[in-house]
């Protein structure tokens, strides 16, 4: 038993690194950007890896750094965190947590359920994912994000402050992941309703775009589910 788990581990790590290695690298680079941002706000460098390792939610952390530096009210920080991160409410529905074994590991898996972790696992056939591979993928994201933040905080923006465009990495990442997700399940209806929801949210509520877009998209899915079921019932009659 011990031998089996020990033997399974290198393979899981290898598969996770092969599949997610570039995203780890990307998150490290983004983490460097975050570390630079934290120090440029006048906050101590070590706060960057601490925020990254505990909050582990890229988009809200960039906002958080500015709010902490300006000593924003705790209530404002709570509301911002809630609004920016509430899209995670929709991830749990299809994240393959049932593939992760052990209570502690499951708890870690939920804690580390970032956008990237979801994007790298949820589109795949759950039966092909082992517990170790999911956990390594998530731990790699966690570690590279926190390590990048530490590096960026230490080097400071004296060295990298003038280098712009690093943040584009995130845009390229999600464009590529969307292209791959579409290739895996070429569903034009899903693509169109998600893009439509995103555009509606951009027009109606640009400040809380992610939450509004995910809610509109979820509502469109519920409507589509009921319409296709009714269609099936008609077809049978």
């Amino acid at each position, binding site marked *: 038993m011990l031998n089996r788990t020990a033997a399974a581990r290198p393979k899981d790590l290898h598969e996770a690194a092969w599949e997610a290695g570039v995203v780890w690298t990307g998150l490290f680079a983004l983490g460097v950007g975050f570390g630079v941002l934290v120090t440029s706000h006048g906050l101590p460098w070590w706060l960057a890896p601490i925020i990254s390792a505990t909050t582990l939610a890229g988009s809200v952390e960039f906002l958080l750094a500015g709010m902490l530096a300006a000593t924003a009210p705790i209530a404002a920080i709570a509301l911002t965190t809630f609004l920016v991160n509430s899209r995670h409410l929709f991830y*749990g529905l299809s994240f393959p947590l049932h593939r992760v074994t052990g209570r502690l590991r499951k708890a870690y898996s939920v804690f580390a359920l970032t956008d990237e972790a979801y994007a790298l696992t949820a589109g795949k056939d759950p039966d092909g994912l082992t517990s170790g591979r999911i956990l390594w993928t998530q731990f790699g994201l966690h570690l590279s994000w926190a390590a990048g933040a530490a590096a960026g905080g230490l080097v400071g923006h004296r060295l990298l402050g003038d280098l712009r465009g690093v943040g584009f990495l995130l845009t390229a990442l999600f464009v590529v992941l*969307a292209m791959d997700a579409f290739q895996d399940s070429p569903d034009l209806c*899903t693509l169109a309703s998600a893009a439509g929801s995103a555009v509606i949210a951009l027009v109606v509520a640009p400040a809380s775009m992610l939450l509004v877009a995910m809610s509109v998209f979820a509502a469109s899915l519920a409507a589509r589910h009921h319409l296709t079921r009714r269609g099936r019932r008609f077809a049978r009659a």
Partner: protein
Amino acid sequence: MPDPTYVATALTVAVTITVALRAIPFALKNAVAGSALLADVGRWMPLGAITVLAVYCLAQIDLSTPTRGLPELAGVAVTIVVHRLRRNVVLSILTGTATCMILTNWVLPT
């Protein structure tokens, strides 16, 4: 450096809310297990959520800057073309980001 107690409180609040948002759906899932709606949502959500995140990132491109967002738009174009040609995630992201960074820092500096 702001007051350490303030920073610790703010971080604890942010972490608690983030973890709760990630955990709530799993707690609710048992209550609605076997739902046909949930099965459909699970099937459609991955592509949809990634698409929303991609549009969110694309919408951050600021067309009102002195460079008119050209470096970013060129980066997106290169990312898409390289990914269509080679289907290599690493290569696509790196060439797209390199394009954006070279244009921003050295070709169209402001």
